[in-house]
């Protein structure tokens, strides 16, 4: 998902304390920043929330690519609002991560040095306007699948950030579907663009949920801590079941010859994405990894004088006020 393949950190605390902590989680209590927590819980959450935050921030780039070229002024205003929301989501999540004892600058530094990751999906390019529709419809649609259950996660600040995000996310998916409807009902060329966008974004969207984690020990620990609520396969199936009828409504074809409704299970059978490609993108070899990192590096280094200047200005104002008193 926006946080993919989160490994849980080992925890070495006293068994009694751990049992009491687990009992609080099992009772549905929220863990708050000043409460005692196992070191592994804290570190795993920093990694997960940090990766989620970085994904929101890097996720602005593929869509930002189309702000200046949106087909109408209204579409441009909507896309601007959507991209601004993504920045807001990143900020809610950074603040949640900071309550665990890591600084904002540390989080940024870890993204820029490649020690922390962001979702694989944002390493794919947005080549046409239809891609902006596909991103809203499929990528935000997949994100919602994961984020809705995370509203009930055990860590209070993370849960509250997810509640705010989910309130806003539905606008994102609907604006994407609206773009797809317009294209799918348009000229032959527009329909081809919509189909092409679906063809390119389908499998990368399925990859967002991460590989099957049925056997993963990390998943078991993260689920016990309630920082992961559903298995990757469960969410992926839910996404496919929800999306196939929407594609049919649009008159578009999911690019999977094996896709069919299984009458026994009531769910769609579908082809797995190419996990080799997924791991390759995570390793940095996706079509846009280098561009995305360069954009973040540039934003950080070229923003340095603004951050420093505003701090200097604030210090000067404070000094003047003290002098006047």
């Amino acid at each position: 998902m926006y946080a993919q393949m989160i490994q849980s950190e080992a925890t070495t605390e006293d068994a009694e304390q751990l049992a009491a902590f687990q009992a609080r989680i099992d009772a549905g209590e929220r863990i708050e920043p000043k409460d005692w927590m196992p070191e592994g819980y804290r570190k795993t959450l920093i990694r997960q929330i940090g990766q989620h935050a970085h994904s929101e921030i890097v996720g602005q780039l593929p869509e930002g690519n189309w702000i200046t070229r949106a087909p109408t002024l209204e579409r441009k205003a909507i896309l601007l609002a959507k991209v601004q929301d993504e920045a807001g989501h990143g900020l809610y999540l950074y603040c949640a991560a900071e309550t665990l004892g890591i600084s904002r600058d540390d989080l940024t530094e870890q993204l820029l040095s490649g020690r922390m990751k962001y979702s694989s999906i944002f390493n794919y390019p947005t080549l046409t306007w239809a891609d902006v529709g596909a991103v809203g419809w499929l990528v935000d649609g997949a994100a919602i699948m994961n984020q809705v259950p995370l509203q009930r996660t055990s860590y209070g600040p993370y849960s509250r950030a997810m509640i705010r995000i989910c309130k806003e996310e539905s606008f994102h998916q609907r604006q994407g579907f609206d773009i797809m409807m317009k294209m799918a009902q348009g000229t032959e060329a527009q329909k081809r663009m919509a189909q092409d966008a679906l063809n390119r974004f389908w499998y990368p969207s399925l990859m967002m949920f991460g590989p099957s984690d049925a056997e993963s020990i990390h998943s078991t620990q993260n689920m016990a801590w309630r920082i992961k609520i559903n298995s990757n396969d469960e969410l992926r199936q839910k996404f496919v079941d929800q999306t196939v009828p929407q594609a049919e409504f649009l008159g578009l074809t999911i690019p999977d010859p094996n896709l069919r409704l299984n009458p026994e299970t009531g769910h769609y059978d579908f082809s797995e994405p190419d996990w080799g490609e997924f791991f390759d993108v995570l390793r940095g070899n996706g079509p846009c990894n280098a561009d995305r990192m360069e954009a973040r590096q540039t934003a950080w280094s070229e923003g340095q004088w603004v951050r420093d200047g505003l701090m200097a200005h604030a210090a000067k104002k404070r000094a003047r006020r003290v002098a006047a008193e």
Partner: protein
Amino acid sequence: MSNEWPLWEVFIRGQHGMSHRHVGSLHAPDAEMAIKNARDVYTRRNEGVSIWVVPAAQIAASSPSDKGPLFDPSRSKVYRHPTFFDIPDDVGAM
């Protein structure tokens, strides 16, 4: 990277007549910028009519381990709730 903007806690009054409620935090160089940033981060959909920002470092908080001594004493004082008293129906609304 040492010159990090300080952290501010943000409180929003959702509607006239309601109290300000904590909504989250953000970084800003000073109070003026914190209010401007809070407007962009926390009120993009008419969530508020007024914003307070407080430097996070200025907030004093009770510790989780004080929960017992702080809050347990009021548990036994059930007579503080109106439902403690049985008033006969004949008396009417009270």
